[in-house]
């Protein structure tokens, strides 16, 4: 079984930690950084930045939060501010970067050897199945679901909005991206885990 931690309500966490920080209490900042950085990482990497460039963008975004701390009026908007800042800077850099620096594709399992590489990279056969179905979605849906997966249900709508997706993209209804993935998985007998059918 995975040891991945369960996500928390990031909008609340960000608002509480940031409001405390502005009042001189930094105690919740480490948890804030630990929980939100994976979301920002995937916002940046989902725009085809190299790992090095994504790391720079994410780190600079956090430093800009410190620089702009007194200018952000609503602490509940902090998560959106961080995501928007990351997305815009990633987009700007991605325009300049060559496609050679893009996120490497996981090899298609054309041969038994290639299938074994996929399984090694993904750690489990079911992840390779999931990956094939994710690849069948539009780029926009792949990006949305990649980032949303690192948050929890109460944050889905806020995150979709911060990614520039229209209201109703996901949460409280499934929205088209998740519906497409679910429908595609349900039609595949190779996808069996979690009872998600």
């Amino acid at each position, binding site marked *: 079984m995975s040891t991945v931690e369960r996500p928390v309500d990031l909008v609340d966490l960000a608002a509480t930690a940031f409001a405390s920080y502005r009042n001189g209490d930094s105690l919740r900042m480490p948890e804030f950084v630990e929980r939100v950085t994976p979301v920002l990482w995937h916002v940046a990497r989902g725009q085809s930045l190299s790992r090095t460039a994504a790391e720079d963008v994410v780190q600079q975004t956090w430093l800009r939060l410190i620089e702009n701390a007194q200018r952000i009026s609503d602490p509940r908007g902090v998560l959106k501010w961080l995501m928007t800042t990351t997305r815009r800077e990633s987009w700007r850099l991605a325009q300049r970067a060559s496609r050679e620096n893009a996120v490497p594709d996981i090899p298609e399992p054309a041969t038994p050897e290639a299938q074994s590489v996929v399984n090694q990279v993904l750690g489990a056969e079911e992840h390779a199945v999931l990956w094939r179905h994710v690849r069948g979605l539009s780029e926009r849906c792949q990006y949305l679901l990649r980032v949303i997966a690192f948050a929890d249900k109460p944050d889905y709508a806020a995150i979709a909005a911060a990614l520039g997706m229209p209201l109703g993209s996901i949460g409280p209804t499934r929205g088209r991206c998740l519906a497409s993935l679910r429908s595609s998985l349900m039609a595949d007998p190779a996808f069996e885990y*979690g009872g998600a059918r």
Partner: protein
Amino acid sequence: MNDLEDLAQGPMDQNDIEILGSLREMWDAVDPLPEGLTDRIQFAMSVASSSRRKWRGLSRNRRH
């Protein structure tokens, strides 16, 4: 409405949460955070934060 539209407009359930959890595991395996990234960020933030506080303190002292 077709089946996909019906599915899209339905409320999220436990199966959706499981699919998203599987996506999270997959991305964690394929593209993990660089090791030590959050530690480096926290260190840089605390340096930046204490510099700004010192700078604000100096500015206040000059005004008084």
